[in-house]
């Protein structure tokens, strides 16, 4: 249900086959299924960094949405990706992102991409997102 909306709304996520694995408060997990179409190095079968960037952008954005009380459009301001080690060829990549700070205008997110173990990531991401202006947006935290 959530996946269907997500795919209907975002054509590029559908093209990559991105799936939402789990959503929480200011928190999102997504899966990028391995596909030969997404390979950057045909000699090794390792996924292209661009596919990981799209996964992290989508997952970080979803984490921001999960921090909003009212849905407003968001736009990526910047995104930094560190590639920590090659993704294993033939394996899905998961992403986990958390929005750890949100203000009236800007949301701050960090995340990792991994196979099995979040503590052994293939990539790390840090991003900031602009929120479209509209009142009563943020959920107050205790």
């Amino acid at each position, binding site marked *: 249900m959530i996946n269907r909306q997500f795919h209907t*709304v*975002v*054509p*590029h*996520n*559908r*093209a*990559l086959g991105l799936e939402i694995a789990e959503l929480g408060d200011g928190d999102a997990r997504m899966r990028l299924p391995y596909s*030969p*179409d*997404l*390979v*950057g*190095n*045909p*000699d*090794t079968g*390792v*996924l*292209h*960094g*661009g*596919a*990981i*960037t*799209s*996964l*992290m*952008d*989508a997952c970080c*954005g979803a984490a921001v949405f999960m921090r909003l009380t009212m849905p407003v*459009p968001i*736009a*990526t*301001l*910047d*995104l*930094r*990706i*560190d*590639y*920590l*080690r*090659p*993704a294993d060829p033939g394996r899905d990549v998961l992403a986990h992102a958390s929005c750890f700070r949100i203000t009236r205008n800007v949301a701050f997110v960090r995340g990792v991409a991994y196979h099995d173990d979040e503590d052994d990531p*293939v*990539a790390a991401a840090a991003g900031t997102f602009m929120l479209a202006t509209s009142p009563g947006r943020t959920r107050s935290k205790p």
Partner: protein
Amino acid sequence: MSKPLIDLIAEAKRDNQPGRLTEAVPYARFMGLSMHHVAGELLGRLTYADMLVGNPALPALHGGAIGALLESTAIFQLLWEAETVVLPKTIGITVEYLRSGRPVDTWARGILTRQGRRVANVRVEAWQDDRVRPIAIAHSHFLIVPGPDGEEGASA
């Protein structure tokens, strides 16, 4: 199987055919990424397709698609300009999104800002109709020697 990518790249350079760089990379074909010589410059091009859209309401290109154009252009610029016997591995890339990407073709130009013995730094700008109004800028750095354990960096 086809030739190793590094050999295909060497042939493309020898024949001055940058278009062949992207033909050899499945993800580049999937995304509609290509490399072109335009007025003496090597430019990356992301040909518009509906599947690149991240926000259909505007509509705007997906941030990941713009990131892919920037990273690919940086790598191909590096391959074109640098003498390297291994494929560069991306250590990191930081993308600043300046304007939303409209549903048209996007171009990018990579500048090799520094090439050291182990690391190369590449700055890339992406634009659409108006080059002086870039839609995104990236700073990226690449490992250009094999790592001690062949582990660093994730993409080719």
